[in-house]
């Protein structure tokens, strides 16, 4: 064998070796990223499994009736989820009733009415506010909003509706300041930036050509919004609303401060109540005994299932939107 061929052979081998190493590294990195992705998936499974396991003692004792019993007695160790579930649904409903129309109104203002120079600053301010931690809204609610409502708003409402059949029980009782209504209001303030930001984003996906065509045949701004923008973005708005609802249902700190933490199902919006997340936040570290802890975890499981369904619907709707051709 001549030396030249020898050298070339050695070089080939060298290259082959480096190549092998290179591809081993590639395989390793591939597997590594794959496992990370899998971990993200397993996280959800893990959360569900851990919550189910933790709530087994409570579910074994109270069966599925746990979710529909109005009972919370740590002394007798008798628990049911109805009062927190009721509070969660009512506060979230109040929040959405306020935040959705206001949010859509702001979005209409931002996309159709606002002077161009103000659009960006207001838009950015709203997006920044969506990032403010919920505990800030919580202490603001406790120290500012609740006393204000107690002094100025609640007595007036209670007085005004005193003699009207349904409304008198809805706005009844001593004005505590804190309670279901205040919690709903704080939640509304908190989800408002989310609903506004998403609605504005989907409003902006409407092709300018379509809007201009409508303006061109003489439509007023409202008619353009009503007949062009909203039909075009219906699914996106619904997705955004569901996303806001998911947040409102699961929000903890903003609510815990102002709801009063009483396991009651009252007819009055001014009465104290509790939500699932507020119950867990304020009682978990003080819970004595397995059954108490387990009942709180079962509440967490219930909350996770409810928000999972809502959020999954929201994502499916928003996904359908992004798959539509022309967007």
């Amino acid at each position: 064998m001549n030396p030249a061929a020898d050298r070339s052979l050695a070089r080939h081998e060298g290259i082959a070796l480096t190549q092998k190493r290179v591809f081993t590294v590639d395989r390793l990195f591939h597997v590594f990223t794959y496992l990370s992705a899998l971990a993200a998936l397993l996280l959800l499974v893990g959360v569900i499994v851990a919550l189910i396991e933790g709530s087994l003692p409570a579910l074994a004792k109270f069966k599925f009736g746990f979710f529909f019993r109005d009972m919370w007695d740590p002394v007798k160790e008798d628990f049911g989820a109805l009062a927190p579930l009721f509070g969660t649904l009512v506060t979230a409903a109040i929040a959405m009733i306020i935040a959705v129309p206001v949010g859509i109104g702001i979005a209409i203002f931002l996309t159709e009415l606002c002077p161009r120079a103000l659009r960006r600053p207001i838009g950015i301010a709203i997006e920044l506010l969506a990032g403010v931690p919920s505990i800030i809204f919580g202490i603001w609610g406790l120290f500012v909003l609740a006393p204000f409502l107690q002094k100025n708003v609640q007595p007036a409402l209670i007085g005004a509706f005193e003699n009207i059949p349904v409304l008198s029980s809805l706005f009844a009782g001593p004005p505590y300041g804190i309670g279901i209504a205040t919690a709903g209001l704080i939640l509304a303030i908190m989800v408002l930036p989310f609903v506004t930001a998403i609605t504005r984003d989907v409003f902006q996906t409407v092709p300018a050509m379509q809007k201009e065509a409508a303006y061109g045949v003489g439509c007023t701004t409202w008619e353009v919004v009503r007949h062009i923008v909203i039909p075009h973005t219906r699914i996106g708005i619904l997705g955004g609303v569901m996303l806001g609802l998911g947040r409102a249902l699961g929000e903890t700190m903003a609510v815990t401060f102002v709801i009063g933490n009483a396991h009651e199902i009252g007819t009055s919006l001014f009465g104290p109540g509790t939500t699932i997340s507020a119950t867990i936040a304020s009682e978990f570290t003080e819970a004595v005994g397995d059954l108490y802890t387990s009942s709180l975890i079962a509440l967490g499981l219930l909350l996770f299932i409810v928000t999972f369904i809502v959020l999954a619907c929201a994502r499916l709707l928003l996904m359908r939107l992004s798959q539509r051709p022309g967007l």
Partner: protein
Amino acid sequence: MMNRALYARRRMVNRIIAALSTGAAALGILVLALVLATLFAEGFAGLKLSTFTEMTPPPGNSGGLLNAIAGSLILTGAATLVGAPLGIFAGTYMAEYGRYSRLTPTIRFINDVLLSAPSIVIGLFVYEIMVVPMGHFSAWSGIVALAIIVIPITLRTTEDMLALVPSQLREAAVALGAPMWRVIWKVSYRAALGGMLTGVLLAVARISGETAPLLFTALNNQFWSTNFGAPMASLPATIFQFAMSPYPDWQRLAWAGALLITLAVLLLNVFARVLASRQRQR
């Protein structure tokens, strides 16, 4: 012939709606401004030099938030170090190796749901898997809880940003004989760096204000502690405890802490925004 009555009505409806939506905007901005105004007024009134140099006091005594600030920095930093790489690598898989894998859409969907899952449930989960087996609350469990919140945020932004990198860039690198991992590190990551950093910053901003997942993992600690195996103080947990208390001293400190968190979060958000817009210009 123009129908004057109809025209007048249409104009009227339009005016009413315009007034209502302008009113909505004014109301929304007013309320949110009110929240911030109170926060700044109360927060700056409670903010003193001692806030940064002294430990959290027992009720009725003066003190600061030093241990809570340090605890928050440690918990947030460590959780980012744990969670961000995991999210980034998972996002890398979804955008690079597994772009056409059937697993990818599933992960994306689950991740989007986890992105807005109630954080208190994450706290319960970590309580079950770490606090119960270990038998006590610890900074470690708080770090894991926060890291679980970091993962979906960084995963989402990483995947989105890598998906924006033009395939021609990758193909050019592959044609030169580079293996995939080098293409990812030298081409994709470089092109998407700004966006990926934005995601990490947003994640840091999000967890620095999170309270619910810390309540029964890291708990709280009235004293200075850097022991990861023991409960650790954090600003949000301290604010929660102090604001709910009847002591004015504690309430003042709660406002000061709330102001610090808000400033940090706003700053991080602004910074992330600047980074993102720089990325877009490139």
